[in-house]
């Protein structure tokens, strides 16, 4: 339980890892929109190929990506099957009320590829960006929202502190569980209800200690002159480098490619809808 990595960050030395986290987040959004704006098989294939290329560039083992796909594979199958049978138009196969149409097959394939691309893309972001970089980037990206009185700095600070204390509290949970076991608490047997009940003597001290920690942390932060986000500077500045511009240009080309294939795809391969 001790060596938990939050947000599944996978440290490696790749171009994607070194990109500015802001660029990564914005690109992720762009790609997600793109995935849902593919209206032709050619553009869908194109975006799938792009996603694969990006994955290979991250130098994160493919096994990691497969693991993240495993979680949603059921959803993919169910939605694909539903789409398969709910297509309209001329049936190519019919058995009772179940019919399969070209339209249905098309939808099923589209949904399946889209969801997989979506998961893979978000995995790229979480695998290649450390949690601290992520909070940093989010704080800076959301900065314009301060106009609408969104407490951007406070939200980012909360995320930072949460990230910092997850391992500490996990360690504490281990200790409390050990202490309760030493007093004869039974946490491994019984039905679900009994086990949940057995957690109460763990959670109560954990909460008490979390509040005590919060109070002390607040004192320590005040001692270090913390007064909220106003007038605060940052040590780590995020600078866009050549790498980032290249990646932006790359994304622009992908966008252009998808748009063009959406329009002219049927010219290339006319047999498809």
């Amino acid at each position, binding site marked *: 339980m001790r060596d938990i990595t939050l947000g599944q960050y996978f440290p490696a030395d790749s171009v994607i890892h070194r990109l500015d986290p802001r660029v990564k987040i914005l690109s992720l959004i762009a790609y997600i929109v793109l995935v849902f704006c593919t209206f032709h098989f050619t553009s869908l294939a194109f975006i799938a190929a792009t996603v694969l290329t990006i994955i290979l560039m991250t130098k994160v083992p493919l096994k990691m990506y497969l693991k993240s796909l495993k979680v949603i594979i059921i959803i993919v199958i169910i939605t694909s099957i539903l789409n398969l049978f709910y297509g309209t138009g001329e049936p190519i196969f019919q058995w009772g009320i179940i019919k399969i149409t070209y339209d249905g097959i098309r939808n099923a394939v589209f949904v399946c590829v889209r969801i997989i691309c979506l998961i893979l893309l978000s995995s790229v972001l979480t695998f290649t960006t450390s949690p601290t970089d992520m909070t940093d980037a989010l704080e800076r990206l959301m900065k314009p929202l301060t106009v609408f009185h969104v407490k951007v700095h406070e939200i980012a600070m909360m995320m930072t502190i949460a990230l910092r204390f997850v391992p500490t509290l996990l360690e504490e949970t281990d200790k409390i569980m050990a202490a309760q076991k030493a007093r004869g608490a039974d946490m491994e047997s019984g039905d679900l209800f009994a086990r949940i009940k057995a957690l109460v003597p763990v959670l109560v001290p954990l909460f008490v200690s979390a509040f005590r*920690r919060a109070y*002390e942390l607040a*004192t320590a932060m*005040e*001692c*270090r*002159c913390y007064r909220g986000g106003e007038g605060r*500077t940052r*040590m*780590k500045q995020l600078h866009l480098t050549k790498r980032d511009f290249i990646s932006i240009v790359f994304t622009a080309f992908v966008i252009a490619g998808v748009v063009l294939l959406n329009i002219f795809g049927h010219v290339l391969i006319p047999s498809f809808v």
Partner: protein
Amino acid sequence: MNYISVQNVTFQYDEQNQDAKPVLDQISLEVKKGEFVAVLGHNGSGKSTVAKHLNAMLIPTSGKVLIDGMDTADEKLTFDIRRKVGLVLQNPDNQLVASIVEEDVAFGPENLGIPSDEIRERVDEALKAVDMYDHRKNAPHKLSGGQKQRVAIAGIIAMRPDCIVLDEPTAMLDPKGRQEVLDTILKLNRENGITIVMITHYMEEAVLADRVFVLDNGRMLTQGKPDEVFSQVELLKKHRLDVPQATELCHKLRSWGVAIKKLPLSEEACVSLLKEVLG
């Protein structure tokens, strides 16, 4: 002029309830610039409360605390006082904010609004001063207690304070971690000229200081140079405070009639003294 001047400070958490026993009762103490003083006392003696008065975390109910001439009761000065007097707390786990060592050290200077290049410089310098530079990219929860406490000290040093107040910085550490932290504190005092106020209940730590203040039940029991304070063995014993073992041994010997003029504070001093006495 004294850098820290605590004048007749009485402090009560509940100001309405006049009958309640105050946490601090008419405490006065002075610390000069560059000095290393220790505040000694039992749990509940009010020593942590003294620490919190020195950087305006608490304001005296009556009396005055002046830091470099600034009154802590003046809210406009709170920020300036806190950047001059840094406070390190007992539990290192609860005072680290960020999940990377160097980012945590940068937290203080960032709050002061210092330009990023200079923060970088200060962070590197502070981490080198506590000998944690090699761990700058690590996560705090992977460090040992002593290392974490040194990072916490670095976080204060990076703000370039004149004075560091440490509230039982070694209480939760193992002997190795304690030694690391003590060495760091001594080095900062001697090499960087930082004024140190160390709150502790370990006699062996108090002995290292230039001057010692002993608190008991919110009152100042005695104060002075370590040898002056610890020579009052009877007084300290009466208030259930320990004296260093070497001092106690020689005190006993003296009461049995061995001719000892000055009580030693350390084992080395004790050994050489006994050699002398035994001829």
